[in-house]
């Protein structure tokens, strides 16, 4: 393509903002803004994961908080055991190394998503929404009622987990780690969308009968997408736990699932930078209006209403115009 599309330019601006603002904040010693930016990046990553299922596959999962929370609990539980010098189940060693924690979180979320997806994907529409919600609620109540890891009160991490060669306790290095993970996930999303798998998945969203009629079974395509989607969201959960040095059942709650959907709708579903734009607006609203009124979500609701009524492509769609499939 000779000229850059408006969406590419918009994406470039968002990426630049996401990198430059925290660097400026670091230079001027305003570490609070770095933490704010880290929150944006992690929520964007969680929503980007959901965007694979929801945006590309049209699978409105109302239970992705399950994976977000599971990822968080993996980080929390491994770190707690390591801190207390206790082994895990079957004598496996605990660890505070982020790469290992991420791997465990991603694999566990994939394993959990497989049966949830296999059962949920036998339904569609409202039933799919409800059944994914039901699974997430089961995991939520399990976490609430399991006293070993804090139950309802949640679980604190004494120190942030470690990353080889990086001082993660500092806000800026931790932000950069999260940003790198988000960038990698965005590459994954971009590659997936353009691949044969992505073509089949997007066709499944638009018309499952068409997909079947050419000989591709929609179920398996959707299931794989659901699992990949859960893994990415789970990874975000592990990062989120480390950001707050705290995990609680609220990460597993249905409000969290709803929040992830809101981020996508706000930013633009199926778009590479949709979740990023959505997370920026969401966190900035929370910060800017949250200081003035506890009812800041009322105003977010108004914006969401506007987007749903007048800008179906989300805020990015408003800037970049309709998505085209070359």
């Amino acid at each position: 393509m000779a000229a850059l599309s408006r969406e590419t330019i918009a994406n470039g601006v968002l990426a630049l903002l996401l990198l430059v603002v925290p660097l400026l904040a670091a230079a001027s010693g305003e570490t609070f803004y770095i933490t704010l930016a880290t929150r944006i990046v992690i929520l964007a990553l969680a929503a980007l994961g959901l965007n694979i299922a929801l945006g590309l596959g049209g699978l409105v999962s109302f239970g992705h908080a399950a994976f977000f929370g599971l990822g968080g609990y993996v980080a929390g539980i491994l770190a707690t055991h390591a801190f207390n010098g206790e082994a895990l189940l079957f004598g496996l060693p605990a660890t505070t190394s982020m790469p290992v924690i991420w791997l465990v979180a991603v694999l566990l979320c994939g394993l959990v998503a497989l049966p949830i997806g296999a059962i949920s994907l036998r339904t569609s529409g409202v039933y799919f929404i409800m059944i994914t919600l039901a699974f997430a609620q089961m995991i939520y109540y399990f976490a609430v009622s399991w006293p070993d890891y804090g139950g309802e009160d949640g679980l604190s991490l004494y120190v942030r987990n470690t990353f080889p060669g990086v001082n993660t306790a500092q806000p800026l290095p931790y932000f950069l780690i999260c940003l790198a993970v988000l960038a990698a996930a965005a590459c994954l999303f971009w590659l997936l969308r353009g691949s044969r798998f992505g073509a089949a998945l997007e066709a499944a969203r638009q018309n499952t009968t068409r997909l079947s009629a050419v000989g591709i079974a929609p179920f398996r395509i959707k299931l794989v997408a659901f699992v990949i989607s859960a893994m990415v969201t789970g990874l975000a959960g592990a990062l989120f736990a480390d950001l707050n040095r705290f995990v609680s059942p609220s990460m597993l709650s249905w409000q969290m699932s709803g929040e992830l959907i809101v981020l996508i709708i706000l930013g633009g579903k199926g778009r590479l930078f949709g979740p990023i734009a959505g997370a920026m607006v969401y966190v900035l609203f929370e910060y800017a209006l949250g200081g003035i009124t506890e009812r800041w979500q009322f105003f977010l609701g108004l914006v969401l209403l506007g987007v749903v009524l007048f800008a179906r492509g989300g805020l990015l769609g408003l800037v970049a115009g309709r998505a085209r499939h070359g």
Partner: protein
Amino acid sequence: MAEAILQLTDLRKNFGALKATDGVSLDLRAGEIHALIGPNGAGKSTLIHQISGSLTPDGGSIRFLGQDMAGLDMAVRARRGLGRSFQISSLAPEFTALRNVMLAVQARQGSSFRFFRSVGSDKSLTDPAMAMLARVGLENRASVPAAELSHGERRQLEVAIALALGPKAFLLDEPMAGLGPDGSKKLTGFLDALRHEAPILLVEHDMDAVFALADRISVLVYGRVIATGTVDEIRANPEVRRAYLGDTA
């Protein structure tokens, strides 16, 4: 007599008390166009749905290339070589015409579980897809989203997708529906040549097209085949005239 590619034997499907398919037996032989006609509500679409796998018959059998198709879903049947077009266009509306056909090419080549290589630059997908669009005369509309194509163009695209699957038999459900006289005429010429690639089971309301194309015609009324024969036999059959064509035909 050529062997049957597709063989339906005593097929039955009820919706409550309604016998939508009532003991239908018919076959599709290599190199022929077998037209299925009948008044509205005769059960033509129900029959097509059972053959393609979106409805499960209550009784009877469907054999395709010598194999029983019972219990196989639509995707498996398509992979075995059953290429169908839909009565009401069933496309991926946001995809361009080209990408709609590329999906079929991709399916024919095998795995859709390839996650990294971009399809847009994959000549093994774009070239055959473009060739199929050219065959139906849509090559200039390749980059238009299916939703923005005209009704006639969507019908052509349906046929291009079915072609791209390289099927062993075509199930075409009213491919002429909603086409103008010109469009019908062009498509008639096209289907005429297509029968040598794979036989066609053609459901069609356009009688001119049916009489011009069909090697054999089966007439379906209230879920039963009341007659099967050549064009002349069907035209002359008094029962068919009464039930369907009307005495003036």
